[in-house]
């Protein structure tokens, strides 16, 4: 069985899948303070998931969303995955969070091109497109650059995710149809993390150090330093 989880978005999502069939699926939104609850909820839900699976001995692979998304969220998920792996000797597989989001959209509406869009803050989004041949590499861009950043051809595509909802007007201007605000497919499902990891096949799960975060952005301080050095 595969234990999968993701905290790249404001949701804390955890699932266990047994040969593609969900055994457990849970998701927790932000806490009462409006901030992501990953630090408090992730391990609680992982233990529930593992209990539902019948114990750690039943878990063959840990799949973790490696971003792009919230920097702190990525670190909580990846440090948890690596530590569980270190303690239990279970291999870890890294899955793009944008791919998991896109896979959820494809499951909802299989015939179309789908675009998973995660709010990247500062007026930008992380996004990946799936034109029917699997989710592509994530990009980071402003919402009105989305079409160009993904190589065009988004006319009639289905877009979802907290970034698509937040920048609905800009994303729709690129030709996409954006899901209704309340649609469940806007939220990343950890079941998709499990399924994508299962489809990666044997050999894709590694020593824990092999799974690294996809930040897609350097720390501000480095960019400032470069600007000063360059001037």
């Amino acid at each position: 069985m595969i234990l999968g989880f993701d905290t790249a978005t404001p949701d804390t999502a955890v699932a266990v899948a047994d040969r593609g069939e969900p055994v457990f699926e849970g998701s927790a939104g932000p806490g009462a303070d409006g901030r992501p609850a990953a630090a408090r909820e992730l391990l609680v839900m992982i233990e529930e998931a593992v209990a539902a699976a019948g114990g750690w001995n039943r878990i063959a692979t840990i799949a973790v969303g490696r971003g792009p998304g919230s920097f702190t969220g990525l670190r909580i998920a990846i440090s948890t995955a690596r530590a569980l792996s270190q303690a239990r000797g279970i291999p870890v597989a890294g899955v793009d969070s944008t791919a998991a989001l896109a896979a959820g959209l494809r499951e909802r509406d299989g015939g179309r091109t789908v675009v998973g869009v995660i709010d990247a803050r500062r007026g930008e989004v992380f996004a990946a497109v799936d034109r029917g041949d699997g989710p592509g590499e994530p990009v980071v861009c402003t919402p009105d650059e989305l079409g160009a950043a993904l190589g065009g051809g988004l006319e009639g595509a289905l877009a979802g995710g907290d970034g698509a909802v937040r920048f609905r007007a800009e994303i729709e201007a690129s030709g996409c149809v954006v899901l209704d605000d309340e649609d469940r497919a806007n939220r990343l499902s950890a079941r998709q993390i499990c399924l994508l990891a299962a489809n990666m096949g044997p050999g894709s799960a590694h020593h824990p150090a092999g799974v690294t975060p996809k930040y897609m952005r350097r720390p501000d301080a480095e960019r400032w330093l470069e600007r000063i050095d360059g001037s």
Partner: protein
Amino acid sequence: MNRILAIETSCDDTCAAVLEGPRALSNIVSSQARLHARFGGIVPEVASRRHLELINPVIDAALEDSGGDLESVDAIAVTVKPGLIGALLVGVSTAKAIAAATRKPLIAVDHLQGHVAAAYLEPDPLEPPFLALIASGGHTLLAEVREAGTFAIAGQTLDDAAGEALDKAARLLGLGFPGGPAIQREAAEGDPEAFGMPVAMSRDGGLDFSFSGLKTALAYAVRDLGAEETRERRADLAASFQSAVVGQLVAKLGRALDAGDWDAVALGGGVAANALLRERARDLCDERGVRLKLLPFELCTDNAAMIGSAARFEPPVAHPDYLALDAAAR
């Protein structure tokens, strides 16, 4: 609770240690100081990223150096506050996951309790009661330690921490980061009395510290001298500034000794590695007939052995009661 694996990631050092009672079997510190030097200070996002890269190998090294493995450990201890929240979360997430996966208890430790508890480590442990002066880049306080595991704050900084003041001074003088060692090196060639720096001493006999006036005085001195003369007189400026920082720390320590009935003092925190502070504190304690516990350098700066030492006096939380444990910046 015999053997403890301790983890510390509250600032810019990635640390893990294994302890058996008051004895550190291993104490691994992977300092990020060089990484942050080019920014002239600690950048939280850079520190957090580096912690994630280092934490597992550092834990592996600590276990290996201890001659044991995870199985031989009875509990996991981790710093939960205060510190940089993103940095703390790497250590806390890691510690919780290791503890949960092995069904071991977890011990949540306050970083400042750790600096005090460094005095309890072998060799030559110091038992309470004692007065602790903890000075670093993040904190400056006088702690009354009457029993292990707790302390009362007798005085603390009202503005900058002592180490922060040294960092800012080093930046003003173009001496690089971290400031403490840079100022100390430069000051060795200078005259500590060349420039009159204010020693902030409130008249009411209070034990709080203040370093912002000192920093302002240095900024004015630098402005008045101009770039060229500042460069020429950099050693004198560094020596005068260092002397004023140390002077205030030691003066307040003296006041605290006057106010209470103490017969031992412990010096901790990164600034406690400063040679002038060690010398002046030694003189003060000799003069008062008070025992002074000077920690080895590796136990002054942030480390996980001190966290494991503090953990001995905190209640272990049994699985699964710690699963929702969070980190806190303060």
